[in-house]
């Protein structure tokens, strides 16, 4: 495997790419297109799952056809092969090549390196040179490669017939017929035309939009992007003028207060923030534990950020901004913090909410802590979440500046070329009054993701002229012309990250289907010129750079994935005055009481863009561990009040809109609130998405899409079975908050026993008092653990036979792990782990090799939470190995617990004897089912990893294929040992907080060997003498003594 940083020439696709002669090689994947188009003939959305009847039908039909062929009526299909008589210079079959590109979700941009296996993109990794990813990633980016191969993608242009049904068309017809319509539109300067776009952070796209605006001056542009940081943008603009953007930087922050900000999960730049946050939580021993940052969180719904928090306050969504106002009252009033210049008059205008004693205590302590931090010149940061109104964002930035964090943990910058799209409310109004007659949606889906109050799904009927997207989504189904859009791995583009890092999006593969990118289509709509994406992007940068442009520069950008040396406007905005903030405060909506419904971006599906992605549907929700569904999350007290249990249906009515959703009791949820994640309940999107969850958008209000109060919530009657991968959430069986059943039965099976020492944690004070706290949980002291075997030369290295020069091991820092679940998806992508589907997860048969165990502790209503990644521990004396009757699992000399799939006969004894329960069984032939065995999905498979068959056990291999690659490379380089850092396993690679260390524990200088010497290092269930190779660094919390 070529390592990302090694070779320059590997990073762009071909010479043709940067010479401007790039033409999509029509036949790069000859089989794929034929395969793709044949399936579409029968129905618009090819059924990925063949029903039994249909299968039998096809069987009969194919038998009949087989009969026909003998009479010579049918030809055999043409098959293509790739005869590389002369091998291209930089292509070695079987050796992966990495290309730099970038992906966008809302305003978040992640720089990526994408692994390409013989021309197929197979795995996404972070680009270490890109500031927003720093070589790391998230589960959305990890999952996006599967979306490329989604069999349900829109493959050919579709035209709406007179009968209201789509029929397959082709681009020539589109050019001709739609071209004529567009010509008329251009003549009328776009009168009555609406262009609906997602957040545009692409410089070349913005440039093309300029042309569009020139040509169609009367057309209106709307923004439809639920994942966008709109409130943050509006807040920054409120305070610092148009074009202002605020970004947070936690690298130096010692005190972080998150107000409804899930900055580790779904907020803007969460990957970078998670990394910076984790750096601030690094602890090497009791001596530096005090330097750790402290995190406060105020939120209605238990997020992974709340799980990390040292202090968490659960409040209604509408109360969060009030608490922020209370905090500023406390700071600017009582503690006498000075407002920045221009802030005069704010104190009087701020709302003065009534706080409960608990809230008051929290805010007072937080204000004191912030003030003390300022006095001690310790940077702090107040983060306001996207769900909160613009004024709260402005206030947050203001407090940050007052605390001296401006330019440090909070930075303002100017985004002068931003497109100010009108909101969807304006679109609804325009459609209502008839001023908008035609709508063009490029990569946007207002018929689905607009707030339900706007009724756009109805209003758009008959109005959508063009829809371009990867799927025939809800808007596509209404469109006159539903056009196939290119996936980002198939298209050229560029993206500017929130911190203004620009990267070029370069395709990894020619479009699999007959698709165009939104940029290409927009250029055509605007100017009637069919320009390919490469020319648009490269042409744009050629113009921007002018004489500075050279092929060398362009190639460097493509290689690095980061654009450098471009001219920038040097204005740095700062808080100007608070007049607009004060006027915004006047319009604050009051809480209408009753139940409050909160809406959240889904940690897995985002705004729904990954709804048809099997990996992400099946990834457990980071906190609730639900898969394949969203649910109405309510607190235990609310559940008691409503008389409901998990899976009972709940009827939620607000503003005349109604939604029936299953209940999931989420400890830590604010009372009398309901939280719903967006992105589910898709209407005929694809085989994976259909039937998963309920559509929360339909309940959203137009004025504030994120929370709405005054809702009526009642038990609906009936149940919908929804499945979580973790039923039990406590290490003390006596108190299990996620299992209200115990409560109902009145039985506490574990009463009287100490809670299980699986996860070990302490506080900073506790660590100082007892530096050996992490060893205290052992049931049997280490010196009393005796083994039957004589140990070999390395006294540390366990049982005999560990003769390898290098001994692999892993250390996971529980202080850094946020539980974001990116590792689960990365592992799935790397190791060809099939998707088992909703039903099989319900049967408890998910195949994930790494799971994130989430445990609650403390009070049932308002618990604290910890997460613990659990994967094969590669025990040196592995219990699984001696019980296998056929030696299908055995130990390598380098300390790996190897699994020989070919030898496995499937007795599952190893799974029973694994105390960590990390072994997974192929109960069915999952890899041969319709979802996993589709010819497109197969293209994603990693050729270095066996695709497992029915009846065998599988489990984490420590990415043995990556270890072997590194060993081969070291061997060819003439080195005896693999260098430290040469092996990066998939979960370690993606981990945004860098919680995982992997390497050679026999080398005392390796990072992992050093981590194993940490005072916090402990093994799980070492009392069983398993001698696990995966160990954990115990968690240290940093609570405020005043709040304890």
């Amino acid at each position: 495997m070529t390592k990302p940083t090694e070779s320059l020439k590997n990073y762009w696709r071909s010479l043709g790419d940067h010479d401007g002669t790039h033409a999509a090689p029509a036949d790069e994947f000859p089989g794929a297109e034929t395969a793709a188009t044949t399936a579409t003939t029968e129905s618009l959305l090819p059924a990925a799952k063949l029903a039994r009847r249909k299968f039998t039908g096809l069987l009969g039909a194919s038998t009949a056809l087989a009969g026909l062929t003998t009479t010579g009526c049918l030809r055999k299909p043409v098959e293509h092969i790739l005869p590389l008589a002369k091998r291209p210079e930089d292509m070695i079959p079987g050796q992966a090549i990495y290309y730099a590109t970038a992906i966008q979700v809302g305003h978040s941009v992640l720089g990526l390196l994408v692994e390409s296996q013989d021309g197929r993109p197979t795995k996404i990794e972070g680009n270490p040179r890109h500031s927003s990813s720093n070589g790391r990633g998230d589960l959305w980016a990890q999952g996006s490669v599967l979306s490329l191969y989604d069999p349900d993608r829109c493959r050919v242009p579709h035209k709406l017939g007179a009968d209201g049904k789509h029929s397959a068309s082709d681009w020539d017809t589109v050019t001709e017929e739609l071209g004529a319509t567009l010509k008329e539109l251009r003549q009328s300067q776009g009168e009555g035309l609406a262009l609906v776009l997602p957040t545009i952070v692409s410089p070349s796209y913005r440039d093309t939009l300029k042309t569009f605006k020139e040509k169609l001056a009367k057309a209106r542009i709307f923004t439809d992007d639920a994942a966008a940081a709109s409130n943050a943008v509006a807040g920054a603009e409120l305070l610092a003028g148009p074009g202002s953007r605020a970004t947070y930087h936690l690298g130096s922050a010692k005190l972080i207060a998150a107000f409804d900000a899930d900055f580790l999960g779904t907020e803007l730049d969460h990957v970078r923030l998670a990394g910076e946050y984790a750096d601030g939580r690094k602890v090497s021993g009791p001596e530096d534990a005090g330097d750790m940052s402290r995190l406060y969180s105020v939120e209605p719904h238990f997020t992974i950020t709340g799980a990390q928090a040292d202090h968490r306050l659960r409040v209604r969504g509408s109360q969060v901004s009030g608490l922020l106002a209370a905090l500023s009252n406390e700071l600017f009033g009582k503690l006498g913090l000075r407002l920045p210049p221009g802030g005069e008059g704010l104190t009087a205008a701020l709302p003065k909410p009534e706080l409960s004693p608990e809230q008051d205590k929290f805010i007072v302590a937080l204000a004191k802590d912030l003030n003390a931090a300022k006095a001690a010149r310790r940077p702090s940061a107040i983060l306001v979440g996207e769900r909160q109104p613009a004024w709260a964002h402005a206030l947050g930035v203001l407090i940050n500046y007052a605390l001296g964090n401006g330019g440090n943990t909070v930075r303002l910058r100017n985004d002068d070329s931003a497109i100010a799209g009108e909101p969807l409310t304006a679109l609804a109004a325009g459609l209502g009054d008839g001023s908008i007659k035609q709508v063009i949606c490029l990569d946007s889906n207002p018929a689905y993701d607009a707030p339900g109050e706007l009724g756009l799904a109805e209003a758009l009927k008959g109005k959508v002229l063009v829809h371009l997207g990867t799927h025939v989504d809800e808007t596509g189904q209404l469109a006159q012309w539903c056009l196939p859009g290119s996936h980002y791995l198939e298209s050229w583009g560029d993206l500017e990250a929130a911190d203004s890092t620009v990267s070029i999006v370069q395709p990894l593969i020619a479009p699999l289907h007959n698709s165009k990118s939104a940029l290409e289509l927009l250029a055509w709509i605007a100017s009637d010129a069919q320009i390919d994406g490469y020319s648009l992007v490269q042409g744009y940068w050629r113009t921007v750079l002018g004489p500075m442009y050279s092929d060398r520069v362009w190639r460097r950008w493509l290689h690095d994935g980061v654009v450098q040396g471009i001219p920038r406007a040097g204005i740095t905005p700062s808080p100007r005055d608070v007049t607009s903030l004060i006027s915004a405060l006047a319009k604050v909506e009051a809480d209408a009481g009753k139940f409050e419904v909160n809406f959240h971006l889904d940690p897995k599906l985002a705004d729904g863009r990954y709804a048809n992605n099997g990996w992400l549907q099946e990834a457990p929700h980071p906190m609730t561990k639900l898969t394949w569904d969203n649910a109405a999350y309510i607190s235990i007290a609310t559940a008691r009040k409503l008389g409901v249990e998990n899976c009972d249906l709940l009827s939620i009515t607000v503003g005349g809109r109604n939604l029936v959703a299953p209940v999931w009791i989420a400890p830590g949820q604010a009372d009398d609130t309901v939280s719903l994640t967006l992105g589910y309940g898709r209407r005929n999107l694809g085989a994976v998405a259909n039937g998963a969850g309920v559509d929360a958008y339909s309940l959203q209000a137009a004025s504030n899409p994120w929370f709405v109060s005054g809702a009526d919530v009642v038990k609906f009657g009936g149940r919908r079975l929804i499945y979580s991968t973790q039923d039990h959430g406590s290490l003390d069986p006596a108190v299990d908050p996620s299992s209200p059943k115990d409560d109902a039965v009145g039985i506490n099976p574990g009463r009287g026993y100490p809670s299980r020492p699986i996860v070990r944690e302490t506080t900073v004070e506790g660590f100082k008092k007892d530096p050996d706290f992490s060893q205290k949980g052992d049931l049997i002291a280490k010196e009393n653990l005796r083994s039957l075997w004589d140990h070999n030369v390395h006294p540390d290295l366990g049982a005999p036979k560990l003769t390898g020069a290098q001994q692999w091991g892993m250390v996971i820092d529980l202080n850094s792990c946020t539980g974001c679940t990116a590792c689960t998806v990365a592992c799935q992508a790397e190791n060809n782990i099939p998707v088992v589907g909703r039903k099989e997860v319900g049967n408890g048969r998910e195949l994930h090799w790494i799971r994130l165990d989430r445990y609650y502790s403390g009070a049932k209503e308002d618990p604290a939470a910890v997460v613990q990644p659990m994967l094969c521990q590669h025990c040196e004396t592995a219990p699984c190995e001696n019980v296998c009757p056929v030696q299908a699992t055995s130990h390598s000399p380098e300390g790996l617990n190897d699994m020989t799939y070919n030898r496995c006969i499937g007795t599952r004894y190893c799974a029973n004897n694994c105390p960590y329960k990390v072994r997974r069984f192929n109960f069915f032939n999952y890899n041969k089912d319709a979802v996993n065995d589709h010819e497109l999905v197969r293209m994603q498979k990693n050729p270095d990893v066996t695709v497992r068959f029915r009846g065998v056990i599988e489990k984490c291999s420590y990415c043995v294929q990556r270890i072997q690659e590194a060993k081969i490379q070291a061997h060819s380089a003439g080195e005896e040992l693999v260098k430290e850092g040469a092996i990066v396993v998939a979960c370690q690679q993606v981990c945004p907080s860098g919680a995982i260390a992997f390497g050679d524990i026999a080398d005392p200088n390796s990072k992992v060997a050093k981590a194993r010497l940490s005072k916090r290092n402990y093994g799980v269930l070492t009392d069983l003498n398993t001698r696990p190779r995966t160990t954990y660094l115990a968690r240290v919390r940093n609570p405020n003594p005043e709040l304890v």
Partner: protein
Amino acid sequence: MATAYHDELDPLLGRKNLVEGGVSYHDITEAVATPIEVPNSRWWIAFLISLSMLGVLGIALGYLFWMGTGIWGLNNPIAWGWAIVNFVFWVGIGHAGTLISAVLFLFRQKWRTSINRASEAMTIFAVICALLFPTVHAGRPWVLYWSLPLPNQMSMWPNFRSPLLWDVFAVSTYFTVSLLFWYVGLIPDLATMRDRAKTPMRRFAYGLFALGWRGSTRHWLHYEKAYLIFAGLATPLVLSVHTVVSFDFAVSQLPGWHTTIFPPYFVAGAIFSGFAMVLTLLVPLRAWFKLGHLITIKHLENMAKIILLTGTMVGYAYAMEFFIAWYSGNPYESYAFTNRLFGDYWWAYWTMVSCNVITPQFIWFKAIRRSPLALFVLSIFVNIGMWFERFVITVTSLHHDFLPSSWDYYSPTVWDVATLLGSFGLFFTLFCIFVRFLPMLAIAEVKSVLPQADPHYHAPHHAPTSGKEHH
């Protein structure tokens, strides 16, 4: 009525007669051989019911092989479910036969002669059912032979450290020895059948398997020696099989499985369930085939006493498990056992305790242990209880083990039920065939316990005159 019943006493020894009604040698041959020779409509009903249950097994296994073990209710923590429960259940049942034929033989317990043939047959059929389960429960049953030490060019060898491999050897050895033991014991009776056969086909078949037995003293000499040797060989196997089966659990480190008490506890449980199954089979058989004078109340009572003894031992083992779990101070261990009492599967545990510990205590009452109907009902309860014991051990230990994150619940699917039902189909089909074609009592052996067989026997004056010796 049981209370009105009085045992006949041997006039010479004063002990209870093992065969009642003052029958002659010929009467015994007739009583045993006639049902085989004369078709019986009741047999056909039983056979057809069993055969249709066997058909269910065929469907269940066909679907299993087609789809995979996913059709059962197994999941991630509970990787062993009904298949293993059924395996241990059937192996357990397969214990009584060899115990009766071998151990009781060595201990000169002559009452065994009336019941050993049927119970040995039961053993063999139960072991066949048992062997079925580990075979089909494997994920890839078509390569199950890899667990045998077959020399191959890749030098791949099974793992001799695995209890599953010990199981392969233990159960297959037990099966082989039991089968041979049973067959050897059958030889004189097969010869009897051959001699009585009226059709050439029957004569040929019985003759083939009778191995030319002519009843000469030399034959008897060899026969007795072989029988004794087999009894000696089979006796340790009775103890070893279930010991090894218990190792499947005891050798692992799972709380609830990892206990040293398992080997004796499993053996006791096996004998307990085996005798219960013998009762379940023989009580109706002796009524239907009018064999009450050969399988007497005394026999039933003796078996009931063994059930009482082993049932109490099992109850002691249950108690001891709890004591050790508490005494060890290991929280995982303690939890595993509290979880049995009060956890999700409390009903399974209490079913087990009620059936296995409480039910046998009724046997203390003479009226009950001498009532065939009461014993039949009791034996059914014991069978149910012993099935649940294996369920409790297998499933409740797995469903809540070390890491609470993995805990899950297991419930069987229709295919689990069909496979269990089907295994009963297989068992009863084989048993029906046995009853139809082979003497279900050891004719020659029973004759040897008749008073007439005693060298000191003097025919009383009212002795039956039709005592024509006939083998």
